[in-house]
């Protein structure tokens, strides 16, 4: 079953077509990676799939009418509420998804994010790595069926990247569908079931990692990335 289907999506900014008629779907249970260099339209595509941006043409359809209650989205920078602690942000995001979290549930969530000692710290004062982990925490407070993460490991040190990857793995273990964008091929290789490569606002190739490597006659995903983003 497809959770989200985007058909012939087009988006223009300042008379420039930044998304040029792409088709894509997110299948239930998969970990899908949206890959491409900076500025190719990954975040714009995600924003259209989530309904933040309306496409100039094309359509997006969802697997259920109340889809917003079943999606958790972490945008490139998660807007933590200023003046609120990590705990309060979790409680507030829960309320945004009509989920009232008990203190015990919040403590558990903080533990899942390895933030047991940071519950009372204002969220905006946490380190970048802690903020990224909390961002996944607040994104999943309502146990969504689909989790969308826009560059979840961007700008992180290796340890923080490892922790985020473990959290995404954990989502997959819970049978949650994940869409994440990235240009880190090591991360993609470890996590993703299916890849969509984008370049210049278009999808240049998509499929399972092994099949894509074979089809494009390259050694590994890094070479595939270089090939697909160079030739278009």
């Amino acid at each position, binding site marked *: 079953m497809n959770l989200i289907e985007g058909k012939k999506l087009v988006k223009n900014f300042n008379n420039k077509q930044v998304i040029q008629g792409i088709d894509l779907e997110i299948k239930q249970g998969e970990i899908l990676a949206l890959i491409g260099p900076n500025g190719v339209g990954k975040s714009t595509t995600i924003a259209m799939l989530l309904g933040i941006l309306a496409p100039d043409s094309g359509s997006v359809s969802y697997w259920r009418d*109340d889809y917003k*209650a079943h999606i958790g989205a972490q945008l490139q920078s998660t*807007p933590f*509420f200023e*003046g609120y602690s990590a705990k309060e942000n979790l409680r*507030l995001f*829960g309320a945004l998804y*009509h989920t009232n979290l008990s203190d015990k549930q919040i403590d558990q969530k903080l533990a899942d994010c390895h933030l047991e000692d940071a519950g009372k710290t204002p969220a905006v004062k946490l380190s970048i790595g802690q903020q990224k982990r909390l961002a996944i925490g607040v994104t999943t407070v309502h146990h969504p069926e689909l989790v969308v993460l826009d560059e979840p490991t961007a700008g992180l040190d290796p340890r923080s990247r490892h922790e985020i990857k473990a959290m995404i793995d954990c989502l997959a273990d819970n049978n949650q569908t994940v869409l994440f964008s990235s240009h880190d091929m090591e991360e993609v290789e470890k996590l993703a079931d299916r890849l969509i490569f984008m370049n210049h606002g278009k999808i240049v190739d998509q499929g399972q990692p092994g099949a894509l490597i074979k089809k494009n006659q390259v050694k590994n995903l890094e070479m595939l990335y270089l090939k697909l983003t160079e030739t278009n």
Partner: protein
Amino acid sequence: MNTIFDLSLKAAAREPFLLFWSILMPIGGTLILGFLVGKPDYFIKITTGMMAMGILFYAFTTTVFSLLGQRRRGVYQLLKVTPLPLPRYIMSVSGAWILVSLICALLVLTVGAVCFDIALTIASLVMIAIVCILAAMGYVFLSFFVSGLCKTEAQASIATNLITMPLLLGSEAFYALDAAPGWVKMIVLMNPFQWLLNGLRSGISGNSQDWAVSVAVLVIFLGVALFLAVASLKSS
């Protein structure tokens, strides 16, 4: 919705601007000016003037900066991907800010009433509370509009000063304008801040006719501010 209201209230109470501009400064101003002037008819004038100023600074100035911060961090974009309707979020947050404004005003009134022996009845307290709530609602909605016009904190600072200064100076908050030229009196008549003052003063004196007029003008102001807030949110 209650969670958002509760958390907004907590966050508002921690706001240092609130403590200074809407509590310490109005209370300090009431006491210093009240004792300096020392005339009984000035006690009500300075107490209500400082109450109104506290409401204006919190419900308008402080919230402009809070809203600008939320807009810039992408809170409204985020709300688009949650099932919570935007109006419900705005109602919860605004409700907390209005309650904080009311509490600030009542704190100043309590200090004024105790120190200057201002007599208050239950009816006058109800009349004052209604006026405070209407005015605070109007200023909060106006802050949604003004924050939508600003892109930076510097712009917000200029915009809030450009609005609050004429409102304050073109009113009888701290001095009488009986001797002012006719055109100044006309401006005062159209100043919603003056109608907040009129409402507070007629509420204390129990003059229900004057109070009703002030309430009617504040309701019109509230309607205009709500229209501007909705237009601003729709366009963004």
